[in-house]
């Protein structure tokens, strides 16, 4: 009899073979151990792929994905997506994606962020004119304070030394903003407003992009420990442009108006 080629065998395993073809293989399996082994291997592979990926079906979806599927009336409470992020001319496939990249940070990264905070604080040594230490805490100083106070992410300046990313209300009610220091050594962090100034719960070195290209990072591509810090504090959603402006005009103290929160598209 003719040997059974891989495509026929695969069709048999996948239930795609017509009845006479399947019957022919059924008959051959009875006395062809090598064929039986090939069939088993193909079945095993299929089963292993299911075992590898089916658990995703039971994972809870990240809130940012579920939020997109909320009815519009609910979206005013839980707006769909960050909207203050700088949007270039490259369209959804890159800009939007980069803007929201890695918002879902696994729990392990949260734990890692604690360790990295120590490294980051070491990196951000006292004496740096962009940070000051007070009561064992890091606070923004100088040009960083100015940028956090004044700069709107909705009005990005590609040449400014500090790029502002997301602004949002933290779970403790304070307003927090992510930022990137562009001049080397590039660093990124999270700043949360308080009466004593902008405290910096997380600061981290930023790895320059491959190929030594210009560092253009803002809210996108934050280091994982910064994203973890954001994730741990984020309640609801990041501010849109109107909310950001309203928060600035209120001195970063009051809850900004929710108007316009539904206009995320």
């Amino acid at each position: 009899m003719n040997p059974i080629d891989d495509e026929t065998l695969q069709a048999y395993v996948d239930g795609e073979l017509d009845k006479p073809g399947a019957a022919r293989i059924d008959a051959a399996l009875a006395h062809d151990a090598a064929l039986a082994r090939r069939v088993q291997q193909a079945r095993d592979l299929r089963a292993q792929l299911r075992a590898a990926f089916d658990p995703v079906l039971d994972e809870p979806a990240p809130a940012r994905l579920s939020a997109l599927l909320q009815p519009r009336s609910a979206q005013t409470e839980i707006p769909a997506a960050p909207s203050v992020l700088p949007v270039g001319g490259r369209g959804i496939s890159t800009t939007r994606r980069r803007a929201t990249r890695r918002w879902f940070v696994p729990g392990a990264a949260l734990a890692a962020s604690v360790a990295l905070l120590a490294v980051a604080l070491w990196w951000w040594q006292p004496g740096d004119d962009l940070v000051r230490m007070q009561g064992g805490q890091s606070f923004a100083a100088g040009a960083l304070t100015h940028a956090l106070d004044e700069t709107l992410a909705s009005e990005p300046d590609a040449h400014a030394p500090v790029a502002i990313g997301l602004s949002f209300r933290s779970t403790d009610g304070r307003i927090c903003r992510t930022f990137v220091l562009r001049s080397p050594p590039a660093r990124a962090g999270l700043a949360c407003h308080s009466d004593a100034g902008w405290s910096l719960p997380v600061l981290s070195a930023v790895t320059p992009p491959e190929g030594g290209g210009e560092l253009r990072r803002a809210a996108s591509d934050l280091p994982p420990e910064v994203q973890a810090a954001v994730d741990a504090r984020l309640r609801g959603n990041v501010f849109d442009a109107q909310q950001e402006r309203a928060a600035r005009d209120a001195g970063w103290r009051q809850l900004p108006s929710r108007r316009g929160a539904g206009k995320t598209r």
Partner: protein
Amino acid sequence: MNSSDAVREGLIPLLPRLRRLARALAGQVADADDLVQIVLERSLARAAQWRPDAALDKWVFAIARNAWRDELRARGRTQHLFAPEESGEMAADRASAQPAQQLELAMALAALPPDHREVVALVLVEGMSYGEAAELLEVPVGTVTSRLARARATLQAHLGKDA
């Protein structure tokens, strides 16, 4: 109910399968969920193009596949979606819940050429028929079967080597 609401409501029960498909295509959790977000946004934006007599899952999966291809093009890397140093991150994502062999398999899948990876994802992970996959990919059924057979051979060789 307008088409946007119909698509939105239809997407809710599809989300787990969409995330599974995205994971098989993109590999890493973060990349996969970024892909899912793009797919949801595009699906909602194009809701008017969906005809209620068409299966929503296939329509959405086609958007997912095309979005994934767009991503690959945008990155300019057609073979490896993630750099070697990032594979440790993927290992960390999965190590707690998955046996080493499944991790090996997921990484072998991620190393396949896109043409092969997508047929594996559609047929072996999502469970589409060859005909459905061919329609989605807009290629003849014979192309699906030959790509799938080659992808299987690669994956099996990889697993055999590590076993």
